[in-house]
């Protein structure tokens, strides 16, 4: 276990380096830059600004300086767009917001998704199954930019229960709608995965053995079927969790939460290189971390998997 984590960390270093260099090159290759505006700046001014941000240096030097700053000072540099703010500021402000609604979305998606999926599998080809499948298909086909206005329509304009936007330090009434809008499609995926893998497990030989032992249906499912049925769901949950906690631009914009998702997308439009790189690296680190967590959970669930 320990050596497994050490090895994973060791593999993470080159992976992140490749990620940084590849994103850097991609951005460099795209035409235009952060200071390209409709009315062109005077060349001297542009030159001065580019010099200030180190954009005149050779590419290799730029990459090297960037990596060096990230590694030694944990400094992702200043934002090119928001003049007085650093990338660290933007992340430390936006990430807690998306983290909050992301974790709630995760919990909600797991609880509802798993229940739907498992019930559907156990009651295979009954009304309960069809209903659960119907709900998850419905949740899947409603994209969040449709979901969000519907939610606002219902809960803000008709029922007047919830505020239509804002964050307000993450008070519960401000979190509910972003969570529902973000989590429904994840929930639907979890339900579908859980249903099909549970169906497969229920058809396996060891379930027949468990039944032959005289175990009640409840115990057959809880003790014998659940763990193996969760495997595909868990491998989906790693990347899904990262996706949820790094936020969604639709949710951030529609509910004005001030989360990181909108900064990420805006940075791409604005050619805000440093913000984009910073968030890319954050997502990269989170992805590697949670894939490792998934592997550890895997090994815990299935003794046949050895962490190697």
């Amino acid at each position, binding site marked *: 276990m320990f050596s497994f984590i050490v090895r994973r960390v060791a593999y993470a270093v080159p992976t992140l380096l490749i990620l940084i260099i590849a994103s850097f090159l991609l951005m460099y290759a795209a035409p235009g830059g952060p200071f390209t505006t409709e009315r062109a700046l005077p060349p001297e001014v542009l030159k001065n600004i580019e010099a200030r941000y180190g954009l005149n240096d050779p590419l290799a030097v730029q990459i090297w300086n960037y990596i060096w700053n990230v590694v030694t000072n944990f400094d992702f540099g200043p934002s090119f767009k928001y003049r007085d703010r650093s990338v660290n500021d933007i992340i430390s402000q936006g990430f807690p917001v998306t983290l909050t609604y992301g974790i709630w979305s995760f919990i909600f998606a797991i609880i509802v998704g798993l229940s739907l999926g498992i019930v559907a599998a156990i009651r295979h080809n009954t009304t309960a199954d069809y209903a659960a499948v119907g709900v998850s298909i419905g949740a899947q086909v409603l994209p969040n930019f449709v979901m969000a206005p519907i939610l606002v329509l219902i809960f803000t304009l008709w029922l007047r229960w919830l505020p239509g936007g804002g964050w307000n330090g993450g008070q519960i009434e401000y979190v509910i709608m972003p969570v529902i809008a973000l989590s429904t499609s994840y929930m639907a995926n979890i339900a579908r995965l859980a249903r099909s893998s549970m169906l497969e497990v229920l058809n396996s030989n060891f379930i027949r*053995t*468990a039944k*032959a032992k005289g175990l009640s249906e409840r115990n057959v499912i809880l003790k014998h079927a659940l763990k193996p049925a969760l495997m595909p769901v868990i491998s989906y949950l790693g990347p899904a969790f990262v996706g949820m906690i790094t936020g969604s631009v639709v949710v951030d914009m529609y509910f004005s939460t001030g989360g990181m998702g909108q900064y990420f997308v805006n940075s791409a439009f604005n050619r805000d290189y440093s913000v984009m790189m910073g968030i890319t690296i954050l997502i990269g680190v989170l992805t590697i971390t949670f894939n490792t967590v998934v592997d550890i959970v895997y090994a815990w669930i299935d003794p046949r998997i050895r962490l190697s």
Partner: protein
Amino acid sequence: MSDMKNSSVLQVKDLNVSFETPDGRVDAVRGVNLHINRGECLGIVGESGSGKSQTFMTAMGLLANNGHATGEVNFHDTQILGMSVRELNKIRGRHMTMIFQDPLTSLTPHMTVLDQMTEVLELHTSVRGDAAAKKSLEWLERVRISDAKRRLNQYPHELSGGMRQRVMIAMAMLCEPELLIADEPTTALDVTVQAEILDLMDELKRENNTAIALITHDMGVVARMCDRIQVMRHGVYVEEGTAEEIFYNPQHEYTKMLLDAMPRIDQPDKATNRKLKEYDEKGRDQNFLTVDDVRVEFDIKVQEGLWPKKVPLKAVDGVSFTLRPGETMGIVGESGCGKSTLARAVLQLIPPTAGAVSWLGSPLSGLNRKELNKKRKDLQIVFQDPLASLDPRMTIADSIMEPLQTFRPEMSRKDMKAKVAQMMERVGLPQQMINRYPHELSGGQNQRVGIARAMIMEPKLVVCDEAVSALDVSIQAQIIELLMDLQEDFDLSLLFISHDLSVVREISHRIMVLYLGRIVELADRHEIYKDPRHPYTKQLISAVPIPDPKIERARERIKLPGELPSPMDPTARLRFMPSKIAANELDYVPRLDEVKPGHYVAEHDELEKLVV
């Protein structure tokens, strides 16, 4: 008569089982009656699709969701058919237990042996905690699992197939049931392990007075185990009687056919209607196929320290032999002995790690792809699973024709079709099947397709890799006959790989016994049976059940202690020479000695020293 009725544990009356499928209703069991008395072993024999398993699945309440059963199933005097699951759970697992064919997948992978066993005790008895663990250990010891204490905390994947079946039996016996239903309990196991499991079940029957329902296709197993036998076919009863009646005085044609088609290791040339033509080497070119010290190693990643390490697994560890034109060499051995790997290495389907294969005087190993492909025309293979080894999207005629398109592109489509039709007729496939797909054919027919595909180029060598193992005995006999016919017509050489010694003796001129990638004995087919020299060969032959109750029950079995060593164990070669391990000569390689002309035996310690 009333006495007999009272003592009957399970009674099935006029049972019908049907399944609703998308293709309509399938009647799997039609009006079956049976009863099993206390302490009796009833054999239910039949080929695949005879409904023998479904009868007992119904009794255990394990019928698939689309299944429907009518009739009566009485456990003592209680009707259990149609009982609620809650009520049935008081009987199944407690008074009536079941073990299954595939021990590898029948245990829950994420639970330890202990947890799976104590679960049964907690469910049906008041035994808990340490007492439950103690009782589980007692039963593991009773089923003679090696190192029983350690097994308790192991997971199923850490145990071999035989050990898992022992765990299944121990688990089924924990509550000392009155009836144990065993559904093909040894079919997936090696023959030596099968012998031990059968002995064990017989012992439990006698000591605990447990009734056993033994469902099997294997007449040899039945001869050994059963007091009474019921023969089933297509969901109905064919014949019933004591073991002696069924074996020595069968009434029904089907029973007679089953007995006739069953190959016997003590009576070669029996299962088929024709005899193997004895091999005549006069005027034969000896430079046909020469295999010289072939080795195949696979690198296995082993977790040790921070970084994984690669350890070679010796699947084939220095095998040499020659094959003559028109001859059949049988390769036998238990699972993991490297028989399939060896055959594939000979055909260069797996490149050998070391050693040389030469074919008609020129080397096969080390050729590039193009040169090798030219030779493939003469080197063909027939696989074990006939359905899975055919492309499901190609008609059988297209599958058979494919080699022609590769090797004879100049042939016209019409000629190819004519040739395919001719070959289909030759292997016994009706012409109207020409446009059928593999899933529309039976297992035996698909295997005929596989043989036709291999034979279409009229090759000189065909490898049959467990080619008849998945087939019912009656079909098996026909396929063996077909292979013998083809051999004579085309002067074909065969490498016939099988785990079944009786079949191998039926079809092979010479037999090679493999153990952990090494030849332990190689001799003429009669010689190796009449005068086996190596302890492993002796054990193997003594473990094969003979479908004759009197002979079978009187036979003495040779048991070699210990489990199969891991092929990664560097001392695995010395499995039969513990004296060298004791003398610390760990690098010693046992020689292959020619004890008689043509009879080779690997060096070994005396049998008496191996049997403790």
